């Protein structure tokens, strides 16, 4: 019997016990009513959202640091710290005015100089920021509440860049903190967001605490994702890191925590049976499973081999390995962009549709001249999503007649090995697995993995002039129709060149106790509007 089987069994039994009418323990009641106890998806190991770009850091940072704009549920950037903006007729000069009364947690007012320093630090790390920096004439504070960004060329996606939720977000910090080298950690965690970070209570790997910032003035609009009025209805939020999924499930059932961000799929059925717990889809933008083939070295430097793999792979196999038999949680994805978002397209995705063609895959493989050299498939076993995908791929490649060198390791090793450009036999790699948050795949600006800039591209280093031409076309697009047309062509080109292999679109659940309300579906946990009655 393995560990997973044991935990599933016990969590299931635990749930049955709870549905059987057992009362909840006393420690879930009373004094904790104004404290929300939240189990995040991962440990908050550092707290600089520009230096470290993990999602969990971004999610915590969204409580502490505010942004100039915030993306709403329709994926449109809305004003947040900004009161108004103007762009010159030639599109070269953007002038922004901050809304009055903004304060940092140390009591100091938020001034333009703080924004300028923050944007300078952010733009050294963020892909859209780097684009802005490359065409920047000057970024200056005009007065305490006004700042100006003068460019050498128009940048129509300016507001999206400042409001996007893909990491790193353009969080605003005090000038003295924002002047920290972007490749070094900040020393203080002072923001102007709705919650203050209680650094003294921080136990990295175990607990992070946020307290309500009394001087925060929310916008008056209705809240929508990162936009609108961020009304805090609890005084204190405790992030409780529980590394073991069965323990997290038991803690939620026992009332020791209120909200579990990412329950593993195996435990969801038992949580659903518990009358005190709500379970729902966490993020409608979901995730895109993927594996990346190394375009620099044989055999995947040959597009025929990459296409052979696409022709043979079954996205259903991958999705069932990832999320089990819950068909509500996944769908096939014959494309690269997030389903049900404006730019979604299946243009050129025929190779991923219909019956899987192993014979054609073998034929393409033979035509490529593949002669049995090992394919180094690097798989992070400590990440269930990558492990499940890696197992399916290894089987697929074997069926195709490829010689698989399966390297089972941990994510830290994959992270360093995938950066190696040397051939697989000399420390490099042939393929690795990962997944992309759907929120990062809604347009080309925030979507590193789909780019084909060769040596400068994301790991795997695909070169695709056709893809890059359409990325430029999308940036230059003047309206949504032009954007859609560019992305259609981009999708087709990316599929033909197989920049990477999408393994399907999948959703995940979130679970919370029924005395908590106001939890919104979105690409990150939003705490504003969340209240607790017990």
């Amino acid at each position, binding site marked *: 019997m393995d560990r997973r089987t044991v935990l599933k069994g016990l969590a299931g039994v635990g749930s049955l016990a709870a549905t059987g009418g057992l009362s909840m323990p006393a420690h879930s009641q009373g004094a904790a009513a104004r404290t929300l106890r939240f189990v995040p998806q991962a440990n908050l190991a*550092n707290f600089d959202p520009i230096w470290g770009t993990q999602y969990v850091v971004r999610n915590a940072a969204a409580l502490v640091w505010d942004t100039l704009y915030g993306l709403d549920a329709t994926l449109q950037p809305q004003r947040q710290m900004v009161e108004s903006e103007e762009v010159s007729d030639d599109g070269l000069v953007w002038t922004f005015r901050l809304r009055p009364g903004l304060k940092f947690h140390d009591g100091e007012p938020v001034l333009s100089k703080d924004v300028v320093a923050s944007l300078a630090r952010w733009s050294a790390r963020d892909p859209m920021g780097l684009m802005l920096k490359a065409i920047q004439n000057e970024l200056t504070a005009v007065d305490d509440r006004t700042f100006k960004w003068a460019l050498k060329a128009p940048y129509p996606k300016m507001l999206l860049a400042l409001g996007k939720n893909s990491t790193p977000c353009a969080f605003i910090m005090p000038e003295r903190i924002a002047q920290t080298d972007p490749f070094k950690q900040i020393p203080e965690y002072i923001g102007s967001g709705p919650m203050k970070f209680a650094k003294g209570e921080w*136990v990295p*790997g*175990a607990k992070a605490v946020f307290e309500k910032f009394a001087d925060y003035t929310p916008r008056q609009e209705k809240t929508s994702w990162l936009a609108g009025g961020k009304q805090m209805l609890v005084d204190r939020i405790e992030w409780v890191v529980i590394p073991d999924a069965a*323990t997290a499930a038991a803690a939620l059932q*026992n009332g020791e925590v209120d909200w579990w961000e990412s329950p593993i799929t195996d435990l969801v059925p038992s949580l659903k049976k518990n009358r005190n717990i709500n379970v729902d889809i966490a993020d409608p933008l979901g995730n895109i499973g993927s594996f990346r083939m190394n375009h620099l070295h044989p055999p995947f430097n040959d597009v025929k081999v990459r296409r052979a793999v696409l022709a043979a792979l079954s996205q259903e196999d991958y999705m069932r390995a990832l999320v089990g038999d819950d068909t509500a949680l996944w769908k096939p994805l014959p494309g690269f962009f997030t389903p049900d978002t404006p730019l979604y397209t299946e243009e050129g995705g025929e190779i991923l549709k219909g019956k899987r063609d192993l014979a054609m895959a073998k034929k393409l493989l033979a035509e490529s001249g593949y002669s049995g050299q090992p394919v180094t498939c690097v798989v992070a076993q400590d990440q269930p999503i990558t492990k499940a995908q890696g197992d399916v791929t290894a089987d697929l490649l074997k069926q195709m007649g490829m010689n698989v060198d399966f390297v089972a390791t941990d994510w*830290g090793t994959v992270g360093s090995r995938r950066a190696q450009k040397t051939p697989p036999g000399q420390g490099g790699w042939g393929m690795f697995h*990962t997944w992309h948050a759907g929120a990062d795949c809604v347009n080309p600006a925030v979507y590193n993995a789909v780019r084909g800039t060769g040596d400068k591209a994301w790991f795997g280093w695909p070169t695709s002039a056709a893809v890059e031409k359409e990325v430029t076309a999308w940036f230059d697009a003047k309206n949504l129709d032009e954007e859609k047309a560019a992305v259609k062509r981009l999708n087709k080109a990316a599929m033909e060149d197989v920049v990477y292999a999408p393994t399907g679109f999948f959703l995940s659940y979130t679970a919370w106790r029924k005395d908590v309300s106001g939890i919104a579906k979105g690409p990150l946990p939003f705490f504003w509007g969340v209240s607790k009655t017990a």
Partner: protein
Amino acid sequence: MVSYILRRVLSTLPVMGIVALFVFSLLYIAPGDPAAVIAGDQASPADVERIRQGLGLDRPFLIQFGTWLWHILHGDLGTSIFTNLPVSAMIAQRIEPTFSLMAITLVLTILVAVPLGVAAAWKAGSWIDRTIMAFAVFAFSLPVFVVGYVLAYVFALQFEWLPVQGYTPLARGFWPWLQNLILPALALGTVYIALIARITRASMLEVLQQDYVRTARAKGLGQRNILFVHALKNAAVPIVTVIGIGIALLIGGAVVTESVFAIPGLGRLTIDAILRRDYPVIQGIVLLFSFLYVLVNLMVDVTYTLVDPRIRY
């Protein structure tokens, strides 16, 4: 004795140095890169390299080791790559939960295992002996996490007597502190109870067959007196040895237990640090554990002289 203890303590220093060099070298040659972990999945290779440079990880091995050793000699365990917090502060933050768990486990183990072993030896061959030994075999075969889940299900989910996870510092009261530790200590202690009960039984059986025990019985000494005053003291050397080894093993067991019960102790800190390649934290913990290991061995040696006057250093 004092000079012996001093010599032993001083001798730990080179041992710790060698262990530190070994661990540092292992980490250096092992695959994995903290910069890649920090940068996240979407980072570019250039970003990862800049972070490596910022952390000083691009410097030659000898310079990194020398710098680290220099800091250690000045009482500075360094700064965590990830949290930017001093390693000593991180260890200090985590030491209480782990030591509390180990202390409760140890007390529980000795209180339960030694009487069980003595009883089994006293009633050797009887149903009492067979029951205790059957329990010992069964308990010894159970993985800590299985025991942990079962205990959590029964005492937390079913009866709702105890919490499933977490840790409350002793400063907030004895009962709040203890209630978080009972289940993990039981889970962690089960295997040690089984082990020490078996060793106690075997050791006691050997002693109970000695001539002096027969003499004591012939003199009409009571059973309790024979067992706990005469026999147990002479059977104590192997028991103390196993308890000493057990303390060292508890460190390893604590890693799993702390994960299952979400206790923010050194075990979890170690796992997190290894997965993230947080080198200064790993090195700091290894140094601490090496020191503890040597210290436990020393305490065991000293205890020998107390329980058996024939042993002298």
